[in-house]
């Protein structure tokens, strides 16, 4: 008992100190602008604070008594931070992803930005982390919304640090607008509790649930799903994601994709399970359907991309889809009171959130290292980097394996849990569920296969073979800090992948807090024990084989007897994805253009250029008409402001007459 007291105390101290630490960054920078040493200190401070966050989360995860921090004395509305187990888990997530990012940034920012800009960036980064930490630990409406809005603002500021070309600012504009709309929905879903809870504290909301009528509950769920869905980037609310993530500085993209999206997952879990105790019966199916669409389309879009960061952004959409698959399944189970299944599915979702945080940050940081070395992110310009930057390449390889869901890497564990929860769906005594959930296995299988293909492409085209451009030709290994952070993340991925227990056990506690009377089924737990054995077999045999295969000789690659195999003869990223794009042409509706020069002799062309662009666009399908509606209404209103004073006077008189008649007939 004393031990747990001690641990609570430690977590408490760590939490408070990290809040303070991140808080004082901006003042520090203001105090000593331009001082290099100060920036070093700041970088170290941020890294340490992230580490402290991980620590605090890890320790608080095992405590059933939540840590409370009351700041209401300062603010006009109650502002309370509570570190219960769910919050602790996400705090752990943030900390463990942010620490390497901070280390990476320490060298990345120094190399890429001017003094003044650097101060801004560091300040924003600290605020960004702080706001995300507050979001996942807030336990009053005011605190949550405050941090939620701040998070958006600061991230937008960070994206703008990279420059303000028109299309960039347009993308940021779309990002901000969608975030604002989403925040409005979130705020509404919070406020809808007010008439029943009469308090802004999460506790009160939790207890008021019984008094909330069904209609309101439905509204709350729908609004929350929409609001957090925008932040998470579920299709069709994903519009901003592939626009905003790629144009941010790479460490910031890592933070946005790795962590910020998870705050949305946190919010939805908070609402669906903690506040609402599972939404209306159909909610699970809706979430499941949308999640499936999101994941499938996300990975298909990703495969068709050849800009590394855009590809990663779309794959974030896909992974969010996988996470939401778990959430939806869990909701379905909960609706049928199958709590074991619900626990299993929720575990899968949360675990995938954590894993995605790890490997997506790894991949984005890797992309940062690549762009730093080669000054390009176009896969068709890369290649042969494995030889030139082996450490980075190896880390990236681990990242690709993890995100492709290969066994012995962390991505597999969570996808596997999701699969298992689908299969468990056949035990639910409900015809819909018995059919739908097992069939989802097929969907997720296809997603997994496509993801594997996508990341074979990323690593194969990007890092193997011959360099396709001078930049890639003369690439050099990334500086130490970058390599260090990359290998940290890679190690984490492998570690979780081979010993899933270290994550499953604490997760069990979190789930236990959310879904009463449910633990993980036995075979799940026992399963995780054989992973190390399989690892032993694979690596053992592989090692033997490598030893067994003796000397090697360098020999020119066979070029069908022709001399001079150039890098342009390699399969490009576009070429690789061609068959898949062909098969799924319905999704892309590609518009192909083949140009032969000179045009008059098509059979002996000097040059042939081929281009294929996706024409399906959610923007044109959904958003344009919506926006145009508003604009057109606005113009109609504008016409009422004629400029003729007599008309103005008429308006006044009419308003008066209307009200008078109203009064006349109202009595």
């Amino acid at each position, binding site marked *: 008992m004393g031990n747990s007291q001690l641990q609570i105390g430690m977590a408490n101290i760590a939490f408070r100190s990290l809040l303070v630490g991140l808080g004082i960054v901006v003042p520090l920078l203001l105090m000593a602008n331009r001082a290099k040493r100060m920036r070093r200190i700041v970088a170290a401070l941020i890294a340490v604070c992230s580490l402290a966050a991980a620590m605090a989360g890890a320790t608080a995860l095992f405590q059933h008594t939540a840590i409370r921090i009351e700041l209401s004395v*300062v603010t006009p509305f109650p502002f309370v931070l509570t570190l219960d187990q769910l919050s602790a888990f996400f705090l752990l997530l943030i900390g463990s992803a942010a620490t390497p990012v901070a280390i990476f940034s320490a060298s990345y920012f120094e190399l890429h930005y001017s003094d003044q800009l650097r101060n801004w960036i560091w300040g924003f980064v600290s605020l960004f982390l702080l706001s995300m930490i507050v979001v996942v630990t807030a336990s009053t409406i005011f605190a949550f919304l405050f941090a939620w809005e701040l998070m958006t*603002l600061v991230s937008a500021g960070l994206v703008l640090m990279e420059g303000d070309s028109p299309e960039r600012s347009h993308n940021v504009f779309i990002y*901000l607008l969608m975030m604002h709309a989403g925040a409005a929905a979130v705020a509404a879903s919070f*406020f809808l509790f007010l008439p029943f809870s009469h308090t802004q504290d999460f506790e009160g909301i939790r207890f008021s649930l019984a008094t909330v009528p069904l209609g309101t509950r439905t509204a709350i769920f729908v609004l929350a799903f929409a609001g957090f869905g925008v932040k998470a980037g579920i299709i069709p609310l994903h519009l901003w994601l592939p626009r905003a993530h790629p144009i941010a500085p790479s460490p910031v993209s890592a933070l946005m994709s790795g962590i910020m999206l998870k705050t949305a997952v946190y919010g939805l879990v908070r609402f669906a399970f903690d506040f609402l105790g599972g939404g209306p019966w159909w909610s699970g199916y809706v979430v499941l359907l949308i999640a499936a669409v999101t994941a499938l389309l996300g990975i298909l879009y990703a495969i068709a991309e050849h800009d590394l960061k855009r590809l990663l952004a779309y794959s974030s959409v896909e992974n969010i889809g996988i996470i939401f698959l778990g959430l939806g399944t869990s909701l379905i189970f909960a609706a049928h009171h199958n709590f074991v299944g619900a626990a299993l599915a929720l575990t899968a979702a949360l675990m995938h959130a954590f894993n995605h945080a790890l490997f997506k940050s790894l991949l984005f940081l890797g992309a940062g290292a690549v762009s730093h070395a080669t000054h390009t992110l176009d896969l068709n310009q890369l290649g042969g980097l494995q030889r030139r930057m082996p450490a980075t390449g190896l880390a990236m390889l681990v990242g690709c394996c993890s995100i492709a869901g290969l066994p012995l890497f962390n991505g597999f564990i969570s996808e596997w849990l999701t699969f298992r929860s689908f299969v468990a769906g056949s035990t639910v005594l409900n015809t819909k569920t018995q059919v739908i959930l097992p069939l989802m296995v097929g969907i997720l299988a296809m997603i997994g296969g496509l993801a594997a293909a996508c990341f074979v492409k990323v690593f194969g085209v990007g890092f193997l073979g011959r360099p396709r451009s001078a930049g890639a030709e003369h690439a050099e290994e990334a500086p130490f800090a970058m390599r260090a952070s990359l290998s940290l993340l890679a190690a984490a991925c492998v570690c979780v992948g081979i010993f899933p227990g270290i994550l499953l056990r604490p997760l069990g506690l979190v789930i236990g807090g959310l879904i009463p009377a449910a633990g993980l089924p036995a075979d799940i737990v026992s399963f995780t024990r054989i992973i190390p054995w399989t690892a032993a077999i694979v690596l053992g045999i592989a090692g033997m084989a490598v030893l067994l295969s003796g000397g090697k000789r360098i020999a020119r690659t066979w070029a069908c007897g022709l001399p001079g195999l150039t890098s342009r003869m390699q399969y490009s990223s576009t070429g690789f994805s061609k068959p898949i794009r062909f098969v799924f042409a319905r999704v892309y509706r590609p518009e192909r253009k083949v140009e032969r020069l000179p045009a008059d002799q098509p059979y002996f062309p000097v040059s042939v250029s081929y281009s294929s662009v996706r024409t399906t666009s959610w923007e044109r399908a959904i958003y344009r008409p919506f926006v145009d509606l508003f604009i057109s209404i*606005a113009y109609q*209103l504008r016409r009422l402001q004629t400029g003729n*004073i007599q008309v103005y006077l008429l308006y006044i008189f009419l*308003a008066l007459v209307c009200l008078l008649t109203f009064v006349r007939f109202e009595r």
Partner: protein
Amino acid sequence: MILLSSLAIPLLGAGLMLGFANAKIATRLALLIGAAEIASLGAIVWQVHIRGVLQEGRYLRADGLSAFFLLSIAFVFGLVLVYSSGYLRHMGEGRFTSARWFYSLVFLFLFTMITVCLSANLGLMWIMMEGTTLASALLVGFYNTEGAVEAGWKYLMVCTVGIAFALFGTIVLYLAAVKDGVKSADALDWLSLMTAAPRMAGDGHLLKLAFVFVIVGYGTKIGFVPMHSWLPDAHTEAPTPISALLSGVLLNCAMYALMRYDAIISHAIGSGFPHALLLIFGVMSMVVAGLLILVQRNLKRLMAYSSVEHMGIIAIGLGVGGPLGLWGALLHTFNHSVAKSLLFFSAGNVRHNLGTLRMDGISGMSRTLPQTSAALVVGSLAIVGLPPFGLFISEFAILSEAFTQARYLVVTLFLITLSVVFGGFAHHLFKLLCGQPVRQPERSRLIPSEYTVMGIAAFCLLLFGARVPYVFRVLLQDAMAVLR
């Protein structure tokens, strides 16, 4: 006595200013008088806080509500005065367009507005409200350009007509009071009306009639849609400090008058009817102005419409009522005037340096006018109600009260409009700040006076976003106590 002095200073100041032809000296003197005035206003606020109510004769009274509004007037007026000291630095000696005329009219304007806040008698309040129109009409037409004259004329006519209805409403209220046995001498005195209100419940529809006329009348001054037509013109064509005064102080004064009437009517016949009207006008103003923000081409016009929108927000706050709603509405009046002044100041700099306010003619400001752009960004973030700025707090309060009372239609429109307005502002700002600059400014950095006022305003917004200062919390309590 102190009340009289606070009225006398600007009045005498207005007269005195005309004697000083030299712009420099006039400016100095104006700053001096302004300081004295602000000091006396501060004294009033302090006295009210200590002694509750200050009475001066039969016609002047200062209570918590007036104290709150006086404080915000003093604050914004101080900012405006300092700003205009730099703003007028190159103004010729025209017939009416000269520093001394400017200042004397400004002091006159100030005098009328302060009297509005201090008048215990609704009749006097009406007279002074009309006085504000008269005093500011010349200021709106100050530059004597085509636009200025047109705007001035529209302002004068529209507001006078509207105000006339307010007079009629006042008369009906007077009639009801007299009928129910209030001495005709006191029948316009706010306090005695408040005490008599419960007795007047019998004349329900007379009171309703009165309120309809009043809300249309003073609503014209406040700028409720559809009586708002004068507002964008006046704000656009007036000299920048005046625009700030108009939307930062004048609108609040009109809102203050409306609050007084609303309190009486609500006491007499319950808050159902007046609050319904407030909500109708509030939502209408908010939605229409919010949509119009999307399609504006002139920077100051954009801000004028956002003023209309915020008046709508305040009206909604009053309309939903309740402790939190009223609190939010009152706080919002202050926050809005600070943020709006900041925005108008930066708009003034834009016009000074780039010579235009047409937004399609401006781009890349973030490079050419860094400080002004920063001010513009801060002001806009504040005005669209994002943390960590004051308006987030007040809008949060209003929204949560509205939700608590389950007024779902109102809150839906409210939230949607907020997003629309955000979109509008973001769209325009990106076009202004980003991209390649088209023309070079004459001076890229701010002069000290501008620097100071903008800094103060921005800091104030930030402060109110984090925490409402003690003074304001107390004043807000007093003000709400008055209206209960």
